[in-house]
């Protein structure tokens, strides 16, 4: 578009016409002339995005005051204003939910932010439920989400930078960090990667995630996604950076390590002694959700010697008469289970649950009765599913779902040896991953002993005075040393 066309016309009606022409066909565009003693003009807005009552109130106030002459002279109670100088800016403002006030004879217009964008209210967290602790979750509005973070972190050092991404549909995006804690290199890297995003529109923060991810094709989540403001605040205080886009109820945090994906916010809201068994369980469950079917196949087809005799006899009895080789049986069952799981999430909620339960029970039972599948296989595959449900990070669940297939194939090829070799390769791959410079397997490999107190165990809060070293925070201690002195020595308050 040429520069000439982009200049706002001097006549307000002409401007309104131009805007309408850009947006045409556009039945929800509203144009309303206004006039004061001195000026005349039009207001242009999209119905539905603008709070009509407020707009009329503001226009009324405008008429009483004598019209806009300069920016400062207009009394606009409760209305945020921006000056727009070009036609395309005016169009964008209209699309953004502003009312554009054009004055006859003026070279620029005003965008009044009177948006009433449809949004849901703040609700309980659905995807990351906990029993204890705060319950609220982010919604699809950036400003509300930022407010929710601000509400929890009343620190003057909490900094919020905004970016606009999306070529066709610009989208506001904010990065949040705690100044003085976050490592400056990390911040620079985040800004650099965000600047490189080229996308037409942003539907969800996942697009941002895929653009700024370290490994391009890794199945492992190298960014943390959460819909819980409390988790975001905890992350910020550890020296991490959070990203929120407008229109997405998910917040992205970097960097993240593998072990963090296995810790649930619940761990921090419960008594610390409970966190140890639960985390151990989750670590175990992650590996069993990846390996269980493969191990079963390996034990049944290659390494029967590892089974105790009574178990072997019972498994052999279950398996006699099954027409398929164990590998095929396993792959078939796994595919069927994945299908059921997918059906469970896609169907309407009321139907979905019954489908997944009924499906597993009825179809599994029928398959066993028909002699198509051995009962052991049904148990193993559903145990794998249950194991993956214990993982708090959805990204890891998806990784486990994907990874179990190659492992079963490896087990079919070389038994335990195949599993082991693939496992080492996977471990190498995981060890080579980095999330914004932080090794993915930290603090286990490379070993950071100080940070181990929040990996498998969760140390009591009074022992976690230092921030995790793996993120190299500028301020290493949560509380300045001189005030923390007596806690540091392990002494606690006694009556």
């Amino acid at each position: 578009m040429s520069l000439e066309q982009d200049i706002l016309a001097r006549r307000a009606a002409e401007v309104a016409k131009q805007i309408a022409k850009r947006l045409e066909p556009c039945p929800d565009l509203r144009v309303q002339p206004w006039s004061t003693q001195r000026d005349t003009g039009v207001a242009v807005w999209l119905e539905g995005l603008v709070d009509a009552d407020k707009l009329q109130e503001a226009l009324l106030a405008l008429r009483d005051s004598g019209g806009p002459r300069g920016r400062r002279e207009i009394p606009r109670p409760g209305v945020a204003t921006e000056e727009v100088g070009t036609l395309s800016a005016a169009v964008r403002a209209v699309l953004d939910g502003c009312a554009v006030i054009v004055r006859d004879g003026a070279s620029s217009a005003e965008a009044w932010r009177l948006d009433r964008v449809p949004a849901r209210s703040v609700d309980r967290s659905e995807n990351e439920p906990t029993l204890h602790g705060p319950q609220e979750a982010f919604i699809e509005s950036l400003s509300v989400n930022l407010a929710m973070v601000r509400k929890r972190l009343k620190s003057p050092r909490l900094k919020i930078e905004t970016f606009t991404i999306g070529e066709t549909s610009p989208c506001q995006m904010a990065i949040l960090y705690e100044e003085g804690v976050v490592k400056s290199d990390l911040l620079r890297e985040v800004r650099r990667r965000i600047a490189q995003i080229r996308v037409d529109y942003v539907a969800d923060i996942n697009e941002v995630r895929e653009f700024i991810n370290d490994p391009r094709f890794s199945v492992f989540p190298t960014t943390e996604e959460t819909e819980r403001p409390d988790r975001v605040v905890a992350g910020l205080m550890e020296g991490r950076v959070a990203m929120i886009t407008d229109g997405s109820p998910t917040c992205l945090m970097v960097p993240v390590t593998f072990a963090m994906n296995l810790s649930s916010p619940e761990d921090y809201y419960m008594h610390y002694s409970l966190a140890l068994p639960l985390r151990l369980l989750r670590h175990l469950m992650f590996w069993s959700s990846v390996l269980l079917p493969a191990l079963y196949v390996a034990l049944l087809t290659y390494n029967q010697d590892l089974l105790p005799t009574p178990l072997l006899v019972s498994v052999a009895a279950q398996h006699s008469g099954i027409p398929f080789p164990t590998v095929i049986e396993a792959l078939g069952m796994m595919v069927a289970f994945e299908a059921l799981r997918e059906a469970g999430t896609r169907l309407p909620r009321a139907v979905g649950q019954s489908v997944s339960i009924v499906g597993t029970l009825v179809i599994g039972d029928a398959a066993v009765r028909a002699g198509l599948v051995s009962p052991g296989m049904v148990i193993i595959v559903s145990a794998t599913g249950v194991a993956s449900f214990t993982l708090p990070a959805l990204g890891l669940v998806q990784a486990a779902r994907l990874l179990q297939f190659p492992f079963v194939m490896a087990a079919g090829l070389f038994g335990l040896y195949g599993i082991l070799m693939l496992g080492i390769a996977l471990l190498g791959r995981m060890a080579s991953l980095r999330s914004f410079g932080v090794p993915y397997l930290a603090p286990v490999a490379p070993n950071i002993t100080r940070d181990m107190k929040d990996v498998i165990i969760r140390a009591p809060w009074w022992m976690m005075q230092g921030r995790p070293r793996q993120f190299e925070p500028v301020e290493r201690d949560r509380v300045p040393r001189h005030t923390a002195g007596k806690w540091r020595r392990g002494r606690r308050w006694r009556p």
Partner: protein
Amino acid sequence: MVQVSRYQLILMLIWTVLGTGIVTMPGTIAQFTLRDAWVAAFGLLLGAVMCSLVSLAHVRLFPGRSLTQAAIDVLGPVLGRMFGIWYLAYGFITMATIGREMSAFIGISVLPNTPDFLLSAIAFAVSMYLAYLGIEVVARVNEFIVPLAAVVSPVLFLLAARLFDASPFQPLLGDPAGAAWHAAVVPAFAYGLEFSIALQWVPALRSPRTLPWDILIAGAISAFVLSALVTLTVGVLGDPARYLNYPVLELVRAIRQGKFVERLDTLYVMGVAITLVLKLAALQLAVGEAVKDVSRSPERTWIPIPVALLGWSLSNYLFRNVFDVTNFILRDVPGYFLLTVVLLPGALYALRTAQMVRTKRPRRLQNT
């Protein structure tokens, strides 16, 4: 910047030496002596001390340089490359030995019908991948394995210790000293000298200065572990340890605890397979570094494939059967390794010192 911490280095060295050590060393030791087997295992420490001395000279004279780089520095591009090629031959032969030991071991113990070359091909492929990912990743995988090993191996130890019986060791030190020395030669010169591959990793170390000390620590830990293992093996198996190829495997096979724990040998084989892959990866890193220096290449990503390929085909070709491997280790390796990783580098350092003295003397005269 790729950097390996001291802790990682020590772990890498321990796995490197114990990788094949736990498979074959108890067997070779038991061929010579049973009563003194536990002493012979400390031969490993002798090798560690030699390597430590060599590395002491190395890090003093060539801080931040690998052995092959040092050779090129001292001997010039032509002679230095010759040394590099000699070192490459050493690396490839060692790799082939390990590959053959591994394929034979796994073939015999868990996958008898799968061709050996296929088994070693997989192991070489995985270790190649690790070597490709770089020394840092190999070090991290080593680190990751440690907690697992720290849990599993004591359990195996304890389970086997129930069958322990001290009579094979009585009377204490009853065998002639010669037999104990014969048994100690292989641990000292064939396995202990493998610590020297750390010299090739020097450019990647965070603190190369402490390398001699780290080798000593790794050597002491490995010698201790090996001695405990050998003691346990001989104590449990008794006389049969003499004729069994893989005594530790038999030791684990003997474990039975109630009705549920009846056969753990496959688990043990898998554990050994992990350490062997890590060992192969560590060697490939060292050899890759040598290839890089010899071909004067700034890149290292192209190296793993040809190195692994050659190591793999050599492992199939050089050793036609397991006896070739055992024979080679018993008859030739001690002298070969001593020459390659102790005497030749020693000569190199002497030469360097001579060069330095010659160049420094005039300067000092000028200074004074």
